């Protein structure tokens, strides 16, 4: 079986977007945290 044969995703799309949004927010928070106390 190769990738085009795989059945389409169902119901996980929102979770994936949430993971990426939270990850971006976490990186932004870490950057802000470092910047606040290092400068």
């Amino acid at each position, binding site marked *: 079986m190769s990738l085009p044969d795989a059945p389409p995703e169902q119901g996980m799309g929102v*979770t994936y977007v949430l993971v990426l949004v939270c990850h971006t927010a976490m990186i932004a928070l*870490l950057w802000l945290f470092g910047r606040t106390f290092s400068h």
Partner: protein
Amino acid sequence: MHLLDWLVVVGYLLWIVIDGLRRTRGATEVEGYFLAHRSLPWWAVGLSVMATQLSAITLVGTTGQAYADGMRFIQFYFGLPIAMVLLSITLVPFFYRSGVYTAYEYLERRFDVKTRTLASVLFLTGRSMSTGAIISAPAVILSIVFHWNLTLTILAIGAPTIVYTMFGGVQAVTWTDVKQMGLVVGGLICAVVALIIGLPHDVSVYRALHIAGAAGRLNTIDFHFDPRQTYTFWSGILGGLFLHLSYFGCDQSQVQRYLTAKSLTQARHSLLMSAFVKIPLQVLVLLVGVFMFLFYVFNPPPMLFNAQHRDEIERSARAAEFHTLESDFQRAFDARRSAANALVSAGDDQRASARAAFRQASGDMRTIRAKASALVGDVSGGQGYNESTGDTPKNDVNYVFPTFVTTSLPPGLVGLVIAAIFAAAMSATAGELSATASSTVIDIYRRLIKPDATDAHYLRVSRMATAFWGIVACAVAHVAVQLGSLIEVVNRIGSIFYGSLLGVFVLALTFRRATGTGAFVGLLSGIVGVVIFAFHPATRGVSYLWHNPIGVGVVMVVGVVVSLFTAPPTATEPNRRT
């Protein structure tokens, strides 16, 4: 160690073995033993995924790294959540729906038996070595800090783990992982609370963090692109992405975890749990290191944390030189503490000069510590030094956390944190033992040596394989201590396999025309390509995180070219069942 601490540590060891053995009931068939009949809830599997990744090396080494170097190590994990999403979309459904026991079983269904066997042998070689390192690193540190016998310390970590993994299988591994993760997180939180309480009464956490920031301990993100630096935003998000794709997608020690989930959705959720929780957890680990730095800003630290190094110098002809350095270190500490107090009470207009004075005082202490480390190297004499401890002056920071725990925490809490270090080592080891046993039995023994035996026979062999790999891990741990720098070589070799293994899976999923010969030649070429890249003088300095994308690239290019020149797969071939 106080009697109460002994009771906590021994109580933990007994509790975890008894709890693991209670799971033996579910391990009466091979499927139950290696896959828990695919019955586990996502949260237990998710905690097991994290417990397998978080070893005592992370707990002790990373806190020490944050103490000395700050929080920039966090960037290493920036590719992890993206990797988890990509794996949940691609490899996880393929593994789960095809009903395989191991990741490499899928390679035979897609390609052929030789590709599967090669991948399995690479995994077994790398993992048997690294499991030894997982046990030896904390054993060496604990044996030095507490003056314990090293062999007995290795056995105290290895023997209980072998017993509950051998009899309870993956169910025992998962449910003990859940409890061990709780203990590790509890130990870390207790350490942070104790460190905050240990700050002077007139220094708030907010002010203390400004001190850590002035010393460069809170530099979290570095956007400069430098392939020679391991911890930058770009190496984390790109190199780390490929590393975590390889680790969670192609390493049986992780694939086996999520194959035990109740359903495909639960398997995905177990991986995505790490995507949400791993970075905050790692921040907690690094904050322990940062707060230890702050603790030792206001309380005198030893110049060298490894007591064995101090003892060696005391017995040498250069003891007087060491005592002079200690006096200088004490004066530099007093100056730094005064500078820290000045920084705490500085107004807005004085803050810049107070920060500069604090940085200068910190630099002076660092310089004296470097001189002391060089003295250790001189006294111990290079090779002889490594043979005795497996240690180098550079990793003196690995002793910071155990030193703080044993000298500054109250009785009871010391036992709890030591039990947490044991738990981290045991949970990572158990996951590796179950995975190496599953690949040995399913990919090698049942496929190539004895294909037609009964399930009861395979279950017996599985238990023997678990015990065998456990004994190998303890033996490697003992040898690794003697050879010291070999651990680094083993880790470097592991990073050479990883990218190429991922390349084979990417080839399988993205290139329909790929053949078994193309995959096999591609895999070998990827390994050779990365070896050349890792050891060639022109590219030797490039961080190992970049080895993974290079391995994937070589496997893909060679795999595609060789596949185009070899016979395409036909529908009638028996090994192509999917």
